[in-house]
C-alpha cells in the first residue's frame, strides 16, 4: 500500500510517473507532487499512470483539482497509461468526458 512518485522534467512539459495505489492515505502525496506542477502559466503536465493498479474517488478528486488548477493557469493536463480498471472508474464517473486521458496500449 505504497505510492511512488517521480517527476521528470522534459523540454516543454513535466512528466509525473506514479506507481502504486492511490487511496485516502496516499492521495495527499499525489496532490503535493502534482498540484505545484500545474500552477505555472501555460504549464504542460503529463501523468503516467501505467503502474497504478488501484485508485478510488480520493485519487479522482486530486485529478479534478489538478485539472481546475491547470485550466486556471491556461495549461494542459493529460493522463496516460490507464489500465482497464482505472479507465473504468473515469468512465463511470464521467471524468473521461472532461479530462484528456489515454489508455494503456495493449501488451503485444
Amino acid at each position: 500500500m505504497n505510492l511512488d512518485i517521480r517527476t521528470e522534467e522534459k523540454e516543454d512539459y513535466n512528466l509525473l510517473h506514479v506507481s502504486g495505489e492511490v487511496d485516502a492515505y496516499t492521495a495527499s502525496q499525489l496532490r503535493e507532487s502534482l498540484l505545484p506542477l500545474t500552477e505555472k502559466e501555460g504549464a504542460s503536465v503529463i501523468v503516467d499512470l501505467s503502474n497504478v493498479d488501484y485508485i478510488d474517488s480520493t485519487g479522482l478528486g486530486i485529478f479534478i483539482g489538478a485539472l481546475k488548477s491547470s485550466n486556471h493557469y491556461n495549461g494542459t493536463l493529460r493522463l496516460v497509461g490507464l489500465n482497464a480498471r482505472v479507465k473504468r472508474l473515469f468512465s463511470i464517473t464521467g471524468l473521461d468526458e472532461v479530462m484528456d486521458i489515454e489508455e494503456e496500449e495493449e501488451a503485444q
Partner: protein
Amino acid sequence: MDKEVLDHVEMKIPARAEYVGVARLTISGIASRSGYSYDDIEDLKIAVAEACTNVVDHAYDEGGYMGLFCDLYQDKIEIVVSDRGQSFHLEDIKKEVGPIDSAKPIEDLKEGGLGLFLIDSLMDKVEINGETGVAIVMTKFLQRDGREQDANGVPAPTNAQK
C-alpha cells in the same frame, strides 16, 4: 425468506486513512475465497474503501473506530461499514452525489461527492442508515450474470459452495 448466512466476519479498526487499505485488503481476501471474479473483487475493494473513507473524513473530530461486517450467503455478500461518530450530514452528502457533469465549466467541477456515487455504481444494492452514527449496507451478488451453467441450465457450484 433470507437464505442462511454461511459465514460472518467482522473487524473494528481505527478510523484513520492508513487503515482504509487494511479494510480493502481484508475484503479482497474474503471475496476471493468466496469465489468472486477478479473484476468483482476490484469493485468490492473500491466500494469498501469509499465507505471507510467517508467515515475517516466525516465521522469523528478526534480519533474513533469503524466497523466492517461481512455476511456471506450462498449467492451474495453483504457488507456493512459503520461508525459511531457524529452522523455526517447525510442529506447534504446525498445531494452532492453524482457523476461529473461535462456540460459544466471546469472551474465548477466538484472534487468530492464521487465516493457514494461509485459505491452505488459498483454494488448491486446499497442502503444508508444514519441516526446516531452512519452505516452503509452494501450487497454484491456472486457471479450474477457470468456464472457458467451446466446442460440443464443449473448454475455451476461456486468455490464457496464446493
